[in-house]
């Protein structure tokens, strides 16, 4: 098990290195002057030259790459050109919104999807199964910004239980923060939970047809016992895969929901970075997201091995 994790860790590090090279190449090496791109067509030659100096664009490629890499390892992501503050500071502020939001949405999605999928699979073909399948179909089809607005309309405007948007900051109190993330988390979780519930259902139905379930029943386990004790864990592999993919998406893919709820999250930061041509912010954020995706993939791989002993031997 330890060797498995170690093997995976080595491949994680390699993936990160390769990703950093690709990102560096795409943003810095491709034709065109980043400084001119950032300043726009009408910028004076002097301004461009000054920015090139500031960005270190006059150094050799290798030096710039190592500089960038070394900076990131020490937490120095450079200075944002538009905000004039360190990128790391910007990212940390936003991460404190995006990360809890992503975790919150993921927890909701998992907590809803697993029992729902379990019920649908255990009562396959029943009215409960059909209604669950119908509801999840709807959950996938409905755009989440529309659902978000519906939530605002009901819970903020009409019932006044939650505020319609904005984030007070964690300094204002933990519960206040949680409360302001609740509606966005639900809006994000709905389509994810729908997908996850369907995956759970089909994985479980397949597992329930396996020979070892019949063996378990022949030992005297009831249908429910066989499902809980033997089928559930075996059905977790595809579910874990989807959970991993969903987390990566939730971390950076929440732009629309962040906009609907005026949340200062990572998605909005990337969007702003792109529209304001702040390549330093974009470059660092893309790297950060790649890191998050690779890390989650690593955790999912380790979770596979924890679930399935056949995967524990390092390959």
């Amino acid at each position: 098990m330890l060797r498995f994790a170690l093997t995976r860790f080595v491949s994680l590090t390699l993936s990160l290195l390769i990703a950093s090279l690709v990102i560096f190449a795409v943003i810095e090496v491709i034709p065109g002057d980043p400084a001119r791109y950032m300043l726009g067509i009408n910028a004076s030659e002097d301004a461009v030259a000054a920015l090139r100096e500031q960005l270190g664009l006059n150094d050799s490629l290798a030096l710039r790459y190592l500089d960038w890499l070394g900076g990131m390892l020490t937490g120095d992501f450079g200075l944002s050109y538009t905000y004039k503050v360190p990128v790391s500071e910007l990212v940390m502020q936003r991460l404190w919104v995006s990360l809890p939001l992503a975790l919150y949405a993921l927890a909701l999605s998992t907590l809803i999807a697993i029992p729902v999928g379990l019920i649908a699979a255990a009562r396959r073909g029943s009215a409960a199964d059909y209604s669950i399948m119908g509801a999840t179909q709807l959950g996938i089809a409905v755009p989440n910004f529309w659902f978000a607005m519906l939530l605002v309309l009901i819970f903020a405007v009409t019932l006044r239980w939650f505020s319609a948007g904005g984030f007070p900051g964690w300094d204002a109190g933990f519960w206040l923060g949680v409360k302001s993330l609740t509606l966005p988390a639900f809006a994000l979780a709905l389509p994810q939970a729908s997908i996850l519930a369907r995956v759970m259902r089909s994985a479980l139905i397949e597992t329930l047809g396996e020979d070892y379930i019949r063996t378990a029943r022949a030992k005297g386990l009831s249908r429910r016992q066989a499902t809980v004790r033997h089928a559930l864990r075996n059905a977790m592999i595809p579910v874990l895969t989807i959970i991993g993919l969903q987390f990566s998406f939730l971390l950076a893919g929440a732009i629309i929901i962040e906009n609907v709820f005026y949340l200062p999250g990572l998605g909005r930061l990337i969007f702003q970075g792109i529209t304001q041509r702040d390549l330093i912010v974009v470059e660092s954020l893309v790297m950060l997201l790649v890191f998050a995706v690779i890390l989650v993939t690593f955790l999912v791989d380790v979770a596979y091995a924890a679930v399935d002993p056949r995967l524990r031997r390092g390959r």
Partner: protein
Amino acid sequence: MIGLESLSLSIHGTPILRDIDLSIAPGKVTGLVGESGSGKSMTALAIMGLLPNGSDVSGAVRLGDENLLNVSERRLCDIRGNRIGMIFQEPMTALNPVKTIGDQVAETLLIHGRAERREARRIAGEKLARVGLGHMPLTRFPHELSGGQRQRVAIAMAIALHPELLIADEPTTALDVTTQAQILDLLNEIVDEEGMSLLLITHDLAVVAGMADHVAVMKEGEIVEQDATEPLFRNMNHPYTKALFAASSHQPDRKPLPVTDAILTADAVVRDYPTARPSLFAPPGRFRAVNEVSFTLGKGESLGLVGESGCGKSTLTRAILGLDPIQGGRITAFEREVGPDFPNALRAGIQVVFQDPYGSFNPRWTVERLVSEPFHLMPSPPKDRRARVAEALTDVGIDPSAMDRYIHEFSGGQRQRIAIARALITKPDLIVLDEAVSALDVSVRAQVLDLIARLQAEHGLSYIFISHDLSVVRSITDRVMVMRAGEIVEEGVTETVFTDPQHDYTRTLIAATPRIPDDWQEDGQHA
């Protein structure tokens, strides 16, 4: 005493079982024999109360003074695993892959509240020792065990609570002959020592002949004949029993062809597989699946290759077909070296028929397209494509009108005939038959063997016939090679090898093969 009284079953309106009357005597082995689809397994599942949804069952399954068809599901859960245990055909998938074998055996005790966790694990250890796995740590996972060992674990689970009845549904069908012999011995021992009844379900007459005290023969959901074992075999009152018996010892009518020059030679062939790396940066290990195998196949000859699973038969086959590169030696066919670069035009001269009649066809292609696929090997595909397909289908006894149908419309035996037609279409010199009749019922198998023999005589074909089933190889080959752990341990004229085996391993294989005692058979029945 467990008794079935006029047990009838239909599933979604389709009748499956009709008026089954069978009593399973305590401490005895009752054999239930029949071909696939005869209702053997459904009978077992009806006793267990594990029938699929949509089942409509009538009659009675008596255990003590209860009728199991009328008791509650809760009561059935108490009985399953406790008073009736069951093991299944496929040991590779019958155990939960994510739980240790110790936990899975202990679960039988825990679920019936017979022991605390600690005590249950201790008893699980005892039971595993009882089935011959005393050396096996309880913390092993199923994937770390061989098929035979897994079947032993399944038996340990089923007998952990000392049930009155053990149902074994084709318990050895998926196992090698030597492993089969060990598992059957184990079952016999358990029945003797623990005094439990055994309901042994199998398609193999020889297995019941060696094991059972009482035999019932099933056909299309009915028991056509039942009696004590020896009288049943001696008399065989029902024509179906006779037919089944004749088919199982069927000898196709064939004469060896005059063997001319060699069409295929293998010279010291070596095939290595890479295995897991011993450490992160070390080169991968090697597993030698085929070790310096040499043989020659003449034109018109039928060469058998027997051995147990994992001995390298299939790997050798893939090398002969030029599908995998070899790491040493040389395979020559039609005077060219076989390998990934073997010219297609020559490749058309070597065709193959695989074991699984269900998995070896693309379900979305018509039979015409399936059968004519090897044409792409030829430099210029024939113009009269449909006529050639019709000819090949006629040759294997399938009506040419089948050409426009899809494969799911055919039975297993018909599919295997179509697979043979596909192999014949390029008019090859050599057909490799890789376990080609192993998945078929005995009566269908007999017909396909006849077909294989006839085609050889008509087209002067050479065969390489690969099988784990010694009796089939004996009936259809001129020469046989016995393979073990990647090496050919014995080779010779088939009859000589079977009547006078030289190598210990060959003797072990022959001895392990179940047989119906010769003196039970009337003259003339065993041709």
